[in-house]
């Protein structure tokens, strides 16, 4: 029994809920794209993500909704906010820096036509009705529950699961390396390179690092 399904005469509450959350999702998305302050953009993205989470719940998928809230709203947006706060006020530059001015109207037109086309296709096509009886997994877990997702993930999709975890690990290492700055980065990289202890490698790296350092100082 869907907890959100209760009976109101006239418009079913589901339709109302869908209308509400889709509206917040669209408004949030529009604000992300349009706000001149990146901070506002990030906050609006939060609206968008939470609305999507609610829509996932309406689709009988509590685990994905939970993950949406935890990963996107909890982690990704917070990370964005951290970075924006760290970098300070960086609005877009004066208009004289804009290149290819004709690009913007074309892009707007393109996005509009894309939206029209896709929505038109969706309306025109004949999707099957959603199944009424939600199936259970082999072990008897209910559809969309954490147990059911876990079972499927660790049986049919175990390879995808492992690869995803490797990707996450690589991304974490990449983030650390990219985050290192200046001297610390230089030292860390040199230690990484020294595993072979090839003198020549070290020497050439030292030279490259020194040159990079010089360039940085010239630029700043």
């Amino acid at each position: 029994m869907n907890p959100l399904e209760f009976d109101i005469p006239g418009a079913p509450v589901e339709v109302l809920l869908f209308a509400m959350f889709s509206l917040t999702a669209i408004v949030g998305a529009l604000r992300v794209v349009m706000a001149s302050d990146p901070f506002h953009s990030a906050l609006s993205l939060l609206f968008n993500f939470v609305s999507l989470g609610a829509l996932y719940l309406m689709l009988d998928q509590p685990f994905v909704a939970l993950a949406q809230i935890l990963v996107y709203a909890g982690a990704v947006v917070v990370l964005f906010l951290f970075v924006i706060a760290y970098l300070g006020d960086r609005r877009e530059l004066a208009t004289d820096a804009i290149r290819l001015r004709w690009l913007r109207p074309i892009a707007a037109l393109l996005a509009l036509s894309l939206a029209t086309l896709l929505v038109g296709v969706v309306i025109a096509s004949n999707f099957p009705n959603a199944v009424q009886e939600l199936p259970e997994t082999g072990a008897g877990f209910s559809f969309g529950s954490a147990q059911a997702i876990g079972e499927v993930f660790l049986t049919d999709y175990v390879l995808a699961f492992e690869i995803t975890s490797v990707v996450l690990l690589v991304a974490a290492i990449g983030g650390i390396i990219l985050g290192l700055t200046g001297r610390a980065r230089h030292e860390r990289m040199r230690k990484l390179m020294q595993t072979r202890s090839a003198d020549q490698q070290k020497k050439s790296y030292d030279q490259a690092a020194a040159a990079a350092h010089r360039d940085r100082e010239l630029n700043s």
Partner: protein
Amino acid sequence: MSIEASAWIAYLAPLAGVLIILFGGMKLSHKVAGLVSCASVLISFGAAIATLLKWNSLDEPEHGVASVAWTWLTSGTFRIPFEIFIDPLSIWMLMVVTGVGFLIHVYSLGYMAGDPQFRRFMAYLNLFIFSMLTLVLAGNLAFLLVGWGLVGMASYLLIGFWHDRPTAVAAAKKAFIVNAIGDVAIMLGLFLIFMEIGQVSWIPVFELLPLAVEENSGRAFMICLLLLGGALAKSAQLPLHTWLPDAMEGPTPVSALIHAATMVTAGVYAIARLHPIFDLSMDAQKLIIVLGGLTLLMAGFIALAQTDIKRVIAYSTMSQIGYMFVAAGIGAYGAAMFHLATHAFFKALLFLGAGIVIHALGDEQDIRKMGGLKKYMPKTYKLFLVGSLALAGIFPFAGFFSKDEILAFTLAAGDVYGTWAYVIYGFGLLGALMTGLYGFRLVFLVFHGTESPLVAQYGRGEILHHGHATNEHGEAPRSMFWPVAVLGLLAVVGGALAIPGLWNVPHDFLHGAHAAPTREALEHAEFSTPAIWLFALAISLPIAVLGILGAWMIWGSGKLGSLRTRFPRMERAGQNAWGWDSMYDKVFSRPSQALATSAVAFEDTITVPALEEAEFAGRDAGANIARLQNGVVRFYALGTALAFLAVVVAFIWVEG
């Protein structure tokens, strides 16, 4: 140890020497490098003797023994195995090559001592021995071609050994190019044979080709002609002989080993080896005889006029190989191989003796600046004299038996080929006279007569070589002297291998299915008897003695000295080597240069501008396209979005 094993050892030992010197590089001292190269050839010689003994103890030595190492190349039914073929002919050559090769290696230790590139020289010399063994042991036509090419390369490397001398480099290139003509000819011959029978190994070729190709047909003549082209180039016979005199630019041991004893005789070997093929075409045989006869005569005349000691001997080599070609042409393979071996002895002896003289006089090769050396170099004089006597064919030296066997067979060939063969016999006799003349011209001009200033200088120990007077340790270093002495001994006793009426070792040894000592027709010729042989000896010996006497009169005692300047045109022609070089220059070199010049002009006026236009057009187009890559990420994203849109539209279009 089986016969195959010993043959493979003989074959591969020089290669091992090359590799050791090559990879040892600068780490090896000159002494070690020299030792390694000599030892490897000595091992090869020992293995060759073992192979010979094994062969004689074989139960049924009818055919040769083919030993396949692995299949070298396969393409459909075409198969070239990496194989060696052991039969009396290849053992004979194996003995000559490794034996003479070893002596010359030892000689080189002294001759090349002090040269900064000594190691490279020894490695090349070993490479040559290996290449020559590839040629003589090859078990099929393709492999023979490999050896043929390899000896050409080794010869090229050794002629051009002193690569800072432009003349040496030019001579090396000339030798290589002329030999390449021969290589191509042999290759085409190989293709023809393969077309006919689809096999390359000796026994199938010899057994199947006579069935596939009609005797005396055009096809048979064509095959023989192409194979003969290779033999002519390698053996410096008319008309592909011009490289040999120039090849004397190489160090003297090289001249002795490659351009006297071994490589230049490869053509004779090839005709003997491929005789079942040459048996198919009477015309090809006649061609070989005529070319050999003309070469032996022409080279004799030119040798009389040349003034460079090494060139004189080079023309003499050409002349002697002419005799071998005549013998091979008429089918007296045994006689040809016999003369090949004795010639290797006495010609190497003459070259090495000349090398001692050249070395002593500080690299002087002009005989007009020599004279009276007998006083300072008595031992060298005696050895050189032995060599010249053997060359001239005086009893009991080696050349006497071998050359006169050829002349005897030529006389017998008249029975097979018709009366014109007697003309060739006349050529041979005239050649014998010339041999005596030019051989002893050298002896008298270099060792007799009045002492020249240069020789006097040598006598006073004023000619220096690497800071030492060249006469410091007697006539020559011991390592240079004893190989010459051994060769001298061989030049004296070598002829005893075949004594008319008593025995004929080469003839008996070369007896076998595919190494017949004589062609069947010749075997049954009317005159093929020891009596004819003795008759031929009785005629040619006086002629040789006459030649020597003539030389004594003209250049020795001077009684007929006026004859020296009596034939100025003849002399000039001889010094110009009868104008072959300038003729080739006019006929081939100049037209091809003119063609090349016009090709360059064509390129400059048409090809290059057109290509430049194409280049500019391409560059402009590229520059225009490169502007698309403007670095603006949004621009790229727009492209992606557009493409996506296009795909969506296409889907809608298709799905309706």
